[in-house]
């Protein structure tokens, strides 16, 4: 990318042009006020005088004119008067102009009329009207316009210098600025390319000046961190998926091989087919659960959020699990405050509570107690499933919601390690807070549904 193509340089050039334009307009205005207007005034004055003096010559004759010219010269005035009168014979009668053009002109004439007095030279410029009478006499009448001419010259020179200066400074500044900006942008490009090459740890270097580029860099870095995090978790999940699916697949294959072997007949065949079916269904369940979790997590699941009687829903969940509790000789006790309502997806919330109760009943030994309580909690609703089983260590509790994560103590029991991941995803979709606590002994899981209409 050449500097000339850079946006910042083009912007600078645009501003240089704008500055030049405004300088020209200002100079023009100044020229108009300080040069054109005074010149017009002088011309008007000289015109008036020339007309009067000419009239005097025509009516009263040469004597009167010469007297008038001498009076005019002697009078004190802002602008020094200049004149020259040449009679019809071509004799200079009176003049204080040092020279004048040989041939008369009908236009304005500027005549240099420097005056030497006591050895000093003072510059003067006479703006002069030239008039030739019918009898051949010639009268030149003028006034000093030296100051106006000086200003005219100054304005011209200043305008050239100002515009040249503006352009030079603008180009230099533009080059410097675009180089500085390009350096910052290159740093961002560099980071992006590093990430594109597959190194997700690439970051935009920050200067710590908290300027616009630093803030942009910060945002980009946050985005990259989030992407890296998500990517990491996707990688972990897919590793886990591959790993977890190997076991049921292996079992499935072993049974298929047994079925394929000639020995399997009648009852044996039936049993194997049943086991194969069960393994297949287990695999399907895992896939379904994974898909649902990721859909719910990715908010691609359009939840049917509606006003739901949470109390009734919790009672339904408890009722569904009651027989399982009885068969496991576990006391399932409920403490459900009635009439609690909130916006929720009933199917999903049912799923979440059902998973929690499933887990609690599965891990609590015979004679244990599982407790489901639902009560108002501030401006929300707290749904708690607590048991007095073996519980989880703090480390296990922190990882329990990861897909396929199973505590060491739970490895022996059936399950895929997806139940709590699903609960976490559902809680997330509801904007609820899921927390796992030590129930000393046992585990206490709480879903806190916030706000809504209670």
């Amino acid at each position, binding site marked *: 990318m050449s500097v000339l193509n850079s946006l910042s340089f083009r912007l600078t050039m645009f501003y240089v042009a704008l500055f030049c334009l405004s300088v020209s307009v200002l100079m023009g205005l100044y020229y108009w006020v300080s040069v054109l207007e005074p010149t017009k005034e002088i011309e008007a004055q000289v015109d008036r005088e020339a007309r009067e003096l000419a009239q005097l010559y025509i009516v009263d004759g040469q004597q009167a004119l010469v007297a008038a010219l001498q009076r005019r010269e002697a009078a004190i005035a802002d602008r020094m008067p200049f004149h020259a009168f040449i009679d019809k014979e071509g004799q200079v009668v009176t003049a204080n102009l040092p020279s004048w053009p040989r041939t008369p002109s009908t236009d304005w004439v500027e005549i240099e009329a420097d005056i030497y007095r006591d050895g000093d030279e003072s510059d003067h410029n006479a703006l002069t009207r030239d008039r030739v009478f019918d009898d051949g006499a010639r009268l030149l009448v003028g006034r000093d316009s030296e100051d106006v001419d000086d200003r005219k010259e100054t304005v011209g020179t200043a305008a050239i210098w100002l515009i040249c200066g503006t352009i030079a400074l603008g180009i230099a500044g533009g080059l410097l600025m675009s180089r500085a900006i390009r350096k910052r942008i290159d740093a961002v490009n560099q980071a992006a390319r590093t990430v594109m090459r597959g190194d997700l740890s690439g970051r935009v270097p920050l200067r710590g000046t908290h300027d616009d580029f630093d803030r942009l860099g910060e945002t980009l870095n946050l985005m990259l961190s989030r992407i890296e995090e998500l990517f990491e978790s996707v990688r972990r999940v897919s590793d886990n998926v591959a790993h977890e699916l190997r076991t049921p697949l292996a079992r499935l294959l072993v049974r298929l091989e047994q079925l394929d072997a000639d020995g399997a007949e009648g009852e044996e065949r039936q049993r194997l087919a*049943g086991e194969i*079916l*069960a393994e297949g*269904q287990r695999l*399907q*369940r895992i896939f*379904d*659960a994974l*898909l*649902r979790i990721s*859909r719910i997590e990715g908010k691609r*699941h*359009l*939840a*049917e959020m509606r006003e739901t009687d949470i109390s009734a829903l919790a009672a*339904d969940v408890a*009722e*569904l*699990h009651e*027989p*399982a509790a*009885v*068969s496991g000789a576990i006391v399932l006790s409920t403490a459900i405050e009635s009439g609690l309502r909130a916006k929720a*997806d*009933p*199917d*999903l919330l*049912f*799923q979440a509570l*059902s*998973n929690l109760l*499933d*887990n609690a009943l*599965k891990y609590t030994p015979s004679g244990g107690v599982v407790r489901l309580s639902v009560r108002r909690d501030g401006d929300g609703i707290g749904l708690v499933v607590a048991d007095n089983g073996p519980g989880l260590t703090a480390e296990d509790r922190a990882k329990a919601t990861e897909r396929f994560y199973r505590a060491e103590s739970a490895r022996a029991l*059936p*399950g895929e390690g997806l*139940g709590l991941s699903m609960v976490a995803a559902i809680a997330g979709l509801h904007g609820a807070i899921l927390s796992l606590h030590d129930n000393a002994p046992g585990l206490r899981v709480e879903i806190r549904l916030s706000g809504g209409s209670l």
Partner: protein
Amino acid sequence: MHVLLVEDDEALAGYIVKGLQEAGHLVDHRADGREGLLQATCETYDAIVLDRMLPGVDGLKILATLRATEDDTPVLILSALGDVDERVKGLRAGSDDYLSKPFALSELIARVEALGRRGPVTNEAPAALRVGDLEIDLLGHTVMRGGRKIDVTTREFRILGYLARNAGRVVTRSMLLENVWDYHFDPQTNIIDQHISNLRHKIEGDGAAPLIHTVRGMGYVMRAEG
């Protein structure tokens, strides 16, 4: 039963046709949405199995067209978009059931058979259901077995009712969950089995003949043996 299958996946369609035929049903198959719609309007079916994603036409559009002509043949939607929200969308569009791919053939057959009997004729609800010597009084909410009154919970009553209405047909666990509990969710464990086990205990105790039979890999069927 006379079933129309509209499914563009040849392999899957062949598999379904074979399965339904083996279960004793007459099956017509169309691979194209428009042809399927035409076929559905030309002939009367007991049930239609409709794929959600068809070349050219969305299965839901066919369903909507069908319903607009006041054709209320039971429709089961098959879909690879397997999630609750898609299911809700399907049911709202007027389908009677929804099954997401991949599915077990047994689940599909069980559901199609349940649909067929739900059929357009069941306008008046019977006051009582009877399977063998089991009598379910739907108005009085009482259950009698061989003249002896059996105490059941409200939920157990609903399970019995659903099984009895589908007597002789397989009812899968997820069908029970959807129809008896009114929640659509995936139980982590075979939680239904415990309820069935309790129910069996109540109605089949004292050496009475078994009524609720487990069909391995599929679900349950209520049938009076012999």
